[in-house]
């Protein structure tokens, strides 16, 4: 072709640069770092709650999202706001994130704490997910440490959007 260089290679000649990663992980913030990021300089007091079956049903009704766990990791902020750590599980991804709520129950800020994806069975496996609890940037996993910038990962944040809807319903039902 005159105007451009086009090259075709059959699949057998794929570049040596192809690598296979059965799992990918990124850590951004610890719970403490996220608290400081969302509520800088504020005092937060742990205030975990456990939802009753009735509350869980009401939250599901209001948010149209499943309540997978009734134990809510919650902190109360001195100014009246709330800090909640939650997790969502997609087909291939497992994401822990923190939501800061203002005193009036509106979202102040959302921060991703950890992001894991896997193309095996692991994401649905609670033991696999448990190993990431408490991990942070200061203690990074060895896994694929150099693979950080991936293009073509059109990941939907629908699961997080659903999770935040569920948290807002939790506020209405159990915290307000």
């Amino acid at each position, binding site marked *: 072709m005159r105007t451009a260089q086009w090259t075709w290679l059959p699949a057998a000649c794929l570049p040596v640069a192809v690598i296979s990663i059965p799992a990918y992980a990124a850590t951004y913030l610890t719970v403490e770092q996220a608290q400081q990021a969302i509520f800088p300089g504020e005092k937060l007091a742990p205030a975990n709650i456990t939802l009753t079956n009735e509350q869980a049903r009401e939250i599901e009704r209001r948010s149209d999202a499943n309540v997978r766990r009734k134990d809510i990791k919650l902190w109360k902020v001195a100014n009246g706001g709330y800090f909640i750590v939650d997790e969502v599980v997609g087909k291939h991804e497992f994401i822990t994130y923190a939501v800061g709520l203002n005193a009036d129950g509106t979202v102040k800020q959302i921060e991703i704490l950890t992001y894991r994806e896997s193309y095996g069975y692991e994401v649905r496996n609670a033991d696999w997910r448990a190993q990431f609890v408490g991990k942070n940037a200061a203690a990074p996993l060895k896994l694929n440490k150099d693979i950080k910038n*991936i*293009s073509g990962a059109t990941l939907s*944040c629908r699961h997080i959007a659903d999770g935040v809807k569920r948290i807002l319903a939790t506020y209405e039902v159990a915290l307000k």
Partner: protein
Amino acid sequence: MKSPSNEIRRARPLLGTLVEIGAVGENATAAIEAAFREIEIIHRLMSFHETDSDVSRLNRAPPATQLEVDPRTYEVLSWARRISILSHGTFDITVGGKLVAAGFLPKPEDAEWPSQEASFHDLSLLSDNRVLLNRPAWIDLGGIAKGYAVDRAAATLKRNGVDSGMVNAGGDLYVFGVPQPIHIRHPEDASRLFSLGILTDAAVASSSGCFTERRDDDGGVADPLIDPRRNTPMRWQQSITVVAPHCLVADALTKVVRLAPRRAAKILPQFGAQAIIIDRRGVRGIAPPARRRSCGTPPWLTRARMQEMI
């Protein structure tokens, strides 16, 4: 090469995806915060869904009504127009109506259904950030605004004293400063990655049906890219990656490469861009033509590197 160890990375759900921002430097945390805020503004201005965005105001406005938009919206509309003209309408932001009809976007409330003949020609860019639509059309900036948001976020980092960083909005990314390794996903197997090399001052955007696909009634795969010439959602199983000096350009040109690869080969060099196509048959590259190398093969992806990849 690794990213610098003192790099700070944060991620937030924005633009309908996960946006990750990394920066090195004393002011990194504040700079990242400012960059996220800029992306939130772009999102608010250019969202099809939010009723008070510039895009929704424009889509609701009666035909031939002048509207003043944010300078950023105006800039994106200007770029979109330029790419539409060069691609002979292959890239066209007035596909909103077709995306709604195909079920990819919700129908805007209070907006008149667009004219079937509407095209980018119907959008006039006037002075002082004023624009007008000559006939009812629904504009969707989904194919370009994400890239622009990445560019703006990177510029915000730089303005805040960061000299090495990266912004990755669900696969549309920009890196600057210390060169960083970039990978592309295989369109059919997300666990397989291609190494694109170690780049800096470069944007990479990928468009791949595999992760956003929706099954058609007849079993085909459709995705939210409309072919304006056929007015139907595209079906495919390949990934298109464009490397360019700006993410807006990279983002928009992935659509042109996909819909009109031959024309794209002429358009890419005008933006200093290159493309990599991956499908089950293998890997193809579109690079600037050899005889124009004196104009400068962009340094971020050398011809030798392209040869090595393909």
